[in-house]
């Protein structure tokens, strides 16, 4: 099963980068591997999202040469850590609410 993760991609990127600095190709691989292929996306769309997060000051980029290739690495900023925590809390609240509805529990 493949799912569209357009709205969740920034959260997933921030989460991957919370484990350490990384470049675009590895970020895409991590998301696909850790979701066991369920969260699938075209990797070209990762870069506008990365650049947008950089523009918002949530991540910062630096160049690093590796295996003879100049790679652009990204790492979380302080604002990025705060945004990740807020987004995680939102996601938990949202998924918890969906779970409760699917399990048929009443909130009243």
């Amino acid at each position, binding site marked *: 099963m493949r799912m569209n993760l357009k709205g969740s991609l920034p959260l997933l990127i921030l989460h991957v980068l919370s484990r350490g600095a990384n470049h675009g190709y590895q970020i895409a691989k991590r998301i696909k591997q850790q979701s066991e292929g369920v969260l699938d996306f075209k990797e*070209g769309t990762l*870069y506008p999202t990365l650049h947008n997060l950089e523009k918002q*000051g949530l991540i910062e980029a630096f160049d690093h040469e590796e295996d003879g290739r*100049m790679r652009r690495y990204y790492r979380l900023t302080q604002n990025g850590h705060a945004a990740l925590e807020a987004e995680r809390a939102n996601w938990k609240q949202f998924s918890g609410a969906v779970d409760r509805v699917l399990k048929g529990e009443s909130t009243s």
Partner: protein
Amino acid sequence: MTTPQQQEIDRWLDTATRGLSRKTARLARQELYTHYLDAFDTYRDEGKSSDEAHHAALADLGDPRVTGTGMRDTHNAERRYWIAAAASLAYPILVMLELAGQMPYNVQGALVYNGVILVTVLIMMDAMRTLLATRCNLNVRWRTYAVSAGVSIVALTSIAVYAINPLYATCFGATAVPLAEVFNASWLTGAVLLGISLVWLGEAVLRVRPSSIFFRPMCIFAILNGYLIAAHGATFGLGMCNAASVLLLAFFFCNSIHHLMWTAVFYFAARRESRSPLQAA
């Protein structure tokens, strides 16, 4: 890598970085090309042939036009917002000139008035699509296309009316002359399409940002304008000239306020973009 493969990835990169500044395009191109090479090498290590690895790596990257749209939305936003802020000021100025009797009732006047409205709406819709996609993660592409189509039909009909006979413009429905029915139908279609699409656009944004101090009043005005222009189109087409005139005046007034609000939104959006870390780098 073979020459045809290199040419194909070059074409992909050209499309994905089109419209960016030279410096940004160079950086983005290098980053995307490294991604492609990493994927190509991985597929080769897995035992795929050079051709299979190339096609698999390109397939992973996806449609270059989608990447290009995202890149332009991210990197060209500031310029777009400044232009859109200036464009959204044009409508209230035109309305003031029209109400002050400064717009000539001839084909040149109609060309200037409707032409400026058409161009400014197209600029605003493009900037609005970028703003809502990058800030609200909301895709309103088809809604903005529908608004643009509605405005285009109304503006082009108005220009055609003046070009053929300025007297038609006094009130289509009451003018029993050849082609009047065609203009009536065209105007009515454009106005109703514009009205419905404004309501459609306003409701979509209102759902995502129901309490935003910026978006809530603007969505309410967009929806109000939608109903006003649709009602104006309908009454105009049916020959109810007095009602159509009152509705048009109300639309002018509300739409001028709506455009002034958008001027402020685009101005603040442009200022925000100019302070972003990427611009400072």
